[in-house]
């Protein structure tokens, strides 16, 4: 049960979007497909929905081979990054669309639509047109539209990607709660690791058309299979062949065997968390995540010489390239970049 993809391959011209991808999504779970732009995550999601046909491989939905089933008959709820609202229909018309196709009678449609609009907190706005709604409201409408037909699975393609930070946070908490109530098998695509870890039970990390690793957020964070996963899920510093999380860096003021000499370059206070950036003797830049109390105890100043002792380090053999930004020393931020890559290349 749930969703299974076996050996999926898809090529767009010269671009290998999916290269032998297999995933297993348990029934009723909430799974995130996480990866950078061009990693193939959106293509995989669209292939599950039938919006993209695979060159090879199999899609199994709730035990049924759906590989050859057209999108129209897959009983899949799909939510798009840019809402794909039917502009010429009211909110009511949008949500009722799938039910009208299924020839429900009017009274039943009306009851079901209002039930869903209540669920997504848009009940008073049924007669509005999509362009009279905010982005967050439009996406909730799109979700209600997808859920109206009681799909076997719910697929969300960067659902919060076009929204501003505050609305994003609210919506993902809300999605989490919604999933707890509905228990429909859900896959959502994101390039934001924090969002994935916040919302999903299971994460599938993708890169260059392949699955790098899948598992719970803790699994991936504590036991990354390779350098790519380590640096994509969470922050990381690179010290030679070793990788260390910024919160695993101990800063000492006294010379110490096995500790690296470093100069404090910049101290950035981000509320409770303090980010201290260092430069090592060989020019490598690393950073440590400290608490406000730790910083006060150390009394660090910019330009000061300190000694860094990495706690838990990891090293990987193999040649998986780090994600963009070098992965090594620069602090990475989840960017708000648009991820229309693969579908646009189609």
């Amino acid at each position, binding site marked *: 049960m749930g969703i299974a993809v076996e050996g999926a391959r898809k090529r767009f011209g010269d671009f290998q979007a999916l290269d032998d991808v297999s995933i297993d999504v348990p029934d009723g779970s909430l799974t995130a497909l996480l990866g950078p732009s061009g990693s193939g995550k959106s293509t995989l999601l669209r292939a599950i929905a039938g919006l993209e046909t695979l060159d090879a491989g199999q899609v199994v939905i709730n035990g049924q081979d759906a590989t050859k089933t057209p999108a129209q008959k897959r009983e*899949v709820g799909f939510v798009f990054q840019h809402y794909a*609202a039917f502009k010429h229909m009211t909110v009511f018309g949008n949500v009722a669309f799938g039910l009208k196709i299924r020839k429900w009678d009017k009274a039943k449609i009306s009851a079901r639509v209002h039930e869903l609009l209540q669920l997504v907190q848009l009940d008073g706005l049924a007669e509005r047109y999509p362009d009279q709604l905010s982005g967050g409201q439009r996406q909730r409408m799109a979700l209600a539209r997808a859920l109206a*037909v009681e799909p076997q699975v719910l697929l969300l393609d960067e659902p919060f990607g076009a929204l501003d930070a505050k609305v994003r946070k609210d919506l993902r908490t809300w999605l989490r709660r919604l999933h707890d109530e509905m228990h429909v098998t859900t896959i959502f695509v994101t390039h934001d690791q924090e969002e994935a870890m916040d919302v999903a039970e299971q994460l599938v990390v993708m890169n260059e058309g392949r699955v790098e690793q899948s598992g719970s957020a803790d699994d991936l964070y504590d036991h990354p299979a390779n350098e790519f996963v380590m640096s994509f899920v969470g922050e990381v510093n690179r010290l030679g062949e070793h990788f260390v999380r910024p919160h695993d860096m101990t800063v000492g003021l006294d010379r110490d065997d096995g500790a690296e000499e470093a100069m404090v370059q910049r101290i950035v206070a981000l509320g409770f968390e303090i980010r201290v950036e260092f430069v090592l003797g060989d020019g490598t830049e690393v950073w440590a995540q400290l608490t406000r109390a730790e910083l006060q105890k150390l009394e660090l100043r910019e330009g000061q010489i300190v000694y860094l002792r990495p706690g838990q380090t990891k090293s990987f053999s193999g040649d998986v390239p780090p994600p963009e930004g070098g992965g090594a020393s620069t602090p990475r931020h989840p960017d708000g970049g648009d991820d229309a890559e693969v579908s646009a290349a189609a």
Partner: protein
Amino acid sequence: MEGHPATLTTNAPPRAGIRLPGLGVGLGRGLVVLYLSLMVMLPLAAVVAESTSGGLGAFWDSVTGAQSMAALKLTVICSLIVVAINAVFGTIIAWVLVRDEFPGKGAVNALIDLPFALPTIVAGLTLLTLYGSDSPFGLDIAFTRVAIVVALCFITLPFVTRAVQPLLMEMDQQMEEAATSLGAGGFTVFRRIIFPNLLPGILAGVLLAFARALGEYGSLILISGNIPFDTEVSSVFIRSQIESGNVAGASAVSVVLLAISLTLLIAVSLFARMGARR
């Protein structure tokens, strides 16, 4: 030649007191009013005045005369047939030009505007050569109503295509995907999603094409044969009235054509506004 249909769909809300560079607000507006008065309002007023110079009774007699009624009826019916044809084919052409990729697409796209650019008398001559008594295909439709429809189809071809193209280009294709994944088949997606989004463009294009067809003269004068009660359209009838000295009668029919065109243009701007609002 009428305005390009695409320009009608960009009705930005007017902002008060915008200055043209180098011109005061009042001067700019004054120039516009003066120019429009000289070029548009005054001639229109003159035609209206001339048409009623013999009194309203004479005006009515001119319009409802057997020959003028036959010409008006022929003109309106042919124009209706033509815009119906071009509504369908214009939309299909727009669809192919926007959604398909094929070699020579740019050339085809440029070709669409040819009927706008070609002198209409040249179009008429071409059609006469192709479909006249010396037709290389043995297809002689000259001096028939079919010829009128063919010529008008040629002349009004670009209107619907050019009005629909921009709407298609900015249409969100994910709407179609969303509808498909909600269970809609190809025809339902077209009827419920694509068509409603193109309708304002189709209607605007149709109305402009209709207005254009009503007044067409150049392409018809050679190929229609101008047989009264058979293939004589209103514009040709107007000319024949002037030639026989009945200026008031010619003006009366002109005013009727004018009234129809004006009503349609108002309708177009309403549709354009409707399209812009959604």
